[in-house]
């Protein structure tokens, strides 16, 4: 069962990443070319997923749209992890100090804002673009990773081997990098996978309201928005991007769950 969710999750995620990568070099049709006379065709042998209201091939758009969604989510989670983890480790290494309070209370402040509203605010101020979407989503990933790594690191700081490293004269930064970080890597991978799925959703939501990647670059969220009024006439227009989002997020969640079971030694012991 556990194996199953690992394979299904990895398979779904792998499929979409592969499609996005292929689209860098080749897509069945050029998505910039409009063929109005060929619009809203149902799925057929020539257009596997049909065409949209401008006559563009939907499969090609899904492939290129995946590129944007995955890239935005990946960079945003990377940003959150890259800033959040060092902040969390620094807070744990200086537990109870002013720095700890400062870091964690600022995280609380970020947490207190509704993420999507702030993202809309940011893009409203700086203009809608993929870069601003990355920043907006990334900022809200910082406290997630900071809190998690601080919690895990605090527990590790009480261990004897950390004590031994201190007796060996190693400083806080060095201990954090050498001893703490490798021991919380499991947790980070698992949390990263789950945050990745949330970021995909957030990107889709931003694109849906028109604040993500701008036309003519295709994106899953905007494909949904563009086609929603046509849903009753041509349901495949909505189904294709909708199912892409659902399957990608489902795959990431299954992968994250399976990774947690595989990587967390505590759960492993309990399972036996």
């Amino acid at each position, binding site marked *: 069962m556990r194996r199953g969710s690992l394979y299904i999750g990895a398979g779904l995620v792998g499929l979409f990443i592969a499609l996005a990568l292929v689209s860098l070099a080749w897509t069945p049709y050029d998505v910039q070319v409009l063929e109005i006379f060929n619009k809203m065709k149902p799925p057929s042998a020539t257009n596997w997923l049909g065409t949209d209201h401008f006559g563009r091939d939907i499969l090609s758009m899904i492939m290129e749209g995946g590129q944007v969604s995955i890239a935005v989510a990946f960079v945003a989670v990377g940003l959150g992890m890259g800033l959040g983890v060092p902040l969390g480790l620094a807070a744990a290494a200086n537990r109870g100090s002013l720095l700890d309070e400062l870091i964690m209370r600022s995280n609380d402040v970020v947490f207190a804002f509704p993420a999507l509203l702030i993202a809309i605010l940011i893009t409203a101020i700086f203009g809608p673009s993929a870069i601003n979407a990355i920043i907006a989503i990334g900022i809200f990933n910082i406290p997630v990773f900071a809190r998690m790594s601080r919690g895990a690191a605090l527990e590790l700081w009480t*261990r*004897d*081997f950390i*004590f*031994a*490293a*201190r*007796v*060996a*004269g*190693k*400083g806080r930064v*060095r201990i954090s990098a050498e*001893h703490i970080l*490798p*021991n919380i890597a499991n947790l980070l991978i698992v949390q990263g996978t789950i945050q990745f799925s949330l970021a995909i959703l957030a990107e889709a939501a931003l694109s849906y309201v028109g604040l993500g990647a701008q036309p003519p670059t295709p994106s899953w969220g905007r494909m949904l928005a563009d086609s929603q009024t046509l849903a009753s006439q041509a349901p495949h227009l909505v189904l294709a991007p909708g199912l892409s989002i659902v399957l990608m997020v489902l795959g990431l969640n299954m992968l994250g769950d399976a990774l947690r079971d595989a990587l967390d030694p505590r759960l492993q012991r309990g399972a*036996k």
Partner: protein
Amino acid sequence: MSLLRIDDLSLSIGTMPILKGISFACAAGQITGLIGESGSGKSMTAYAITQLLPKGAICSGQILLDGDNLLAKTETQMCALRGDDIGLVFQEPMTALNPVKTIGAQVAETVRLHRGASRAEAAAIARDTLNRVGLPAAQFPLGRYPHELSGGQRQRVVIAMAIALRPRLLIADEPTTALDVTTQAGILALLRQLVNEDGMGLILISHDLGVVADMADDLVIMRHGEVVEAGPNAQVFATQNHPYTRALIRASAHQPSRDDYQGETPLLQVEGLVRDYALPRTSLFAAPGRFRAVDGVSFTLRKGENLGLVGESGCGKSTLTRAILGLESIQAGRITINGQPVIAGQSMPAEMRRHLQVVFQDPYASFNPRHKVARLVAEPFHLIADAPQGPARRKAVAEVLQSVGLQPSDADRYIHEFSGGQRQRIAIARALITRPELIVLDEAVSALDVSIRAQILDLLADLSSRFGLSYLFISHDLHVVRKITDRVMVMQAGKIVESGETEAVFAAPQHPYTAALIKAAPQLKVEAKDDELVV
């Protein structure tokens, strides 16, 4: 007729045999001591009797409780037996109680479950039982929560839960291992008294021959899943038929050969050391209280000397150690090593820190599980500016591994491939690599089996004379301290209450606390019949 008889009990988990045809009996009103080192299968025997076995375990043979085969019973029938006819006491009183339920409710639970008693009846029985285990109503009302009790008191609650229904058989698995010696003496006396009053059979499982020898009527000695020797206490010790029995006795009493200490140069000097901790505020506006963990401690440790520090948990010995290692700021006093002051934090010069190393109690928590032995052992090289690199570093690691009795090839293995005793050797190797002058041994042998402990003590004594090392040997185990130290200090509530030559202190303790500690420590008074340490 015996209360419990085990006939040819075998147990395997998967393809791994755990118990190999063990047989012994346990009589009502008697204490059967089940002795063995880790991995001997003694706890598994207890789980087999209660049928609380891990998944995938397969039993064969017979376990007869009053002639009734427990192995033939269904889970429902066993549930009725457990807690009613068979009581269980575990090692760790801190985790055996549910922290969000009162002690009264936890003791009453068994009664309500098995007797269908009303709430009031169950509470009355719980009250009686708690009185019997020495927790009178005045200080210990039923509404107390586990966190309000000390370790020894919690263990009494666990015992009360086990005996509330006056079971015919009580199994106590290392009931005092996690407790201080004075507390241990009280718990053991209580168990003895309960056995006498109720006429129940007690299986006392322990790795400590000293504890069991004083208590048990019958002994069962186990090793590698087999019973190597069983019989009445006096007979087992008198005949010592099996070589393993002799090795165990020998290891318990083992005295590493040590040179008499000579030398006057002071290495570590501690003067009037005070360490306070702030307590949480009791109300918003009250000033936070202070707890004095170390209270005006002064002593001198000379070069090449082995100094013991003895005290029960919470006496401040760990805080003192951390202060000496420069990891804890102090409120008053002075610590100097070779005349240079120890400063807490990073500002302590590396050259000074390299002369100070430490070995911890738990060989399983002392190492980063993600590094190989070579990297773990070489970690203190961080303190040396021109630390050897490349082949020279490998050579240094190999040398130090050899000096603790391991192979140079062990450097490329991960820590989980080693046993507890081997890990402790690696911990000592790590402490040795900077050629320190002082090693702090913080309960360094307390978690080890007696035979392994004897070997590590030999190693420590040998290293001390070879490298002219000084030890600050911290332990709650007086017998170990007696074997390895020249002088000893006794610590109580943050103060050193007595210090002096080890033999003199043990022979004629001046302070009542020291006397109480020595009296409470169980000691094996039997001599082994040969000198073999390992079989």
